[in-house]
């Protein structure tokens, strides 16, 4: 059965990280199925999540979905 990439995790980022991620996330588009050029946006998102301690997939669709789920989970109070 398919599950969300971030499903089941209790880890939450700090408010500062949340703000940084949210600000960037709002500026980028969801990845297209067949993208034949490099926008750099999803790579920067990948780097941002790695630096926050996550191990995101190199698949841009899953990466984007994961970022959305991290934001939806909120920050650690």
């Amino acid at each position, binding site marked *: *059965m*398919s*599950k969300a990439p971030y499903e089941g995790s209790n880890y939450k980022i700090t408010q500062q990280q949340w703000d940084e991620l949210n600000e960037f996330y709002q500026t980028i588009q969801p*990845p297209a199925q*067949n*993208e*034949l*050029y*490099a926008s*750099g*946006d*999803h*790579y*920067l998102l*990948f*780097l941002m999540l*790695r*630096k926050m301690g996550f191990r995101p*997939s*190199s*698949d*841009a669709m*899953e990466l984007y979905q994961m970022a959305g789920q991290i934001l939806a989970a909120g920050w650690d109070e």
Partner: protein
Amino acid sequence: MNKETMLQLNVIPEGKEAWLSYDQYQELKAIFQDINLPSSQTTIDDKSYFKLYDFLTTIAQLPVQANEYALHFNAFTLIRRGYKIEEITTREYEQLSALMMEVSQADIDDMELDDFGGHRALYRFLTNTIGLSVKQGRGPVWHRAKDLLDQYERVHSRNRSV
């Protein structure tokens, strides 16, 4: 590194369809998954980057710079481009569609594969019947089959509109 500087490192030809084979694509993903984040814009300090450099220059035939930032960014971008999906016949398409109706969607990293059942039947069809390579696991099998079906539909819808 800002986005503009990063994009200057890009050597993946814009508009070029995927050219890696499925096996090469899996190899690249495995290398990328294990590699540390880049630390140098001028050299290769981490030895795992030599493997990536070898892959990108020899197998993918890309004129990428020998520095960690360029290698890491181009590897990600090449993964984004995907792999060259084989074309299947109409008969194979029909058989594959019928098999896919019997299984549920699996997460790409679901590496379980029972000896019996729908995903095993799909795996046998892909490997034994039509002779394609696919990683063992419900996820890889389901996604490989979906790619083949989508590719068939893309090609045939293009042909119909010509």
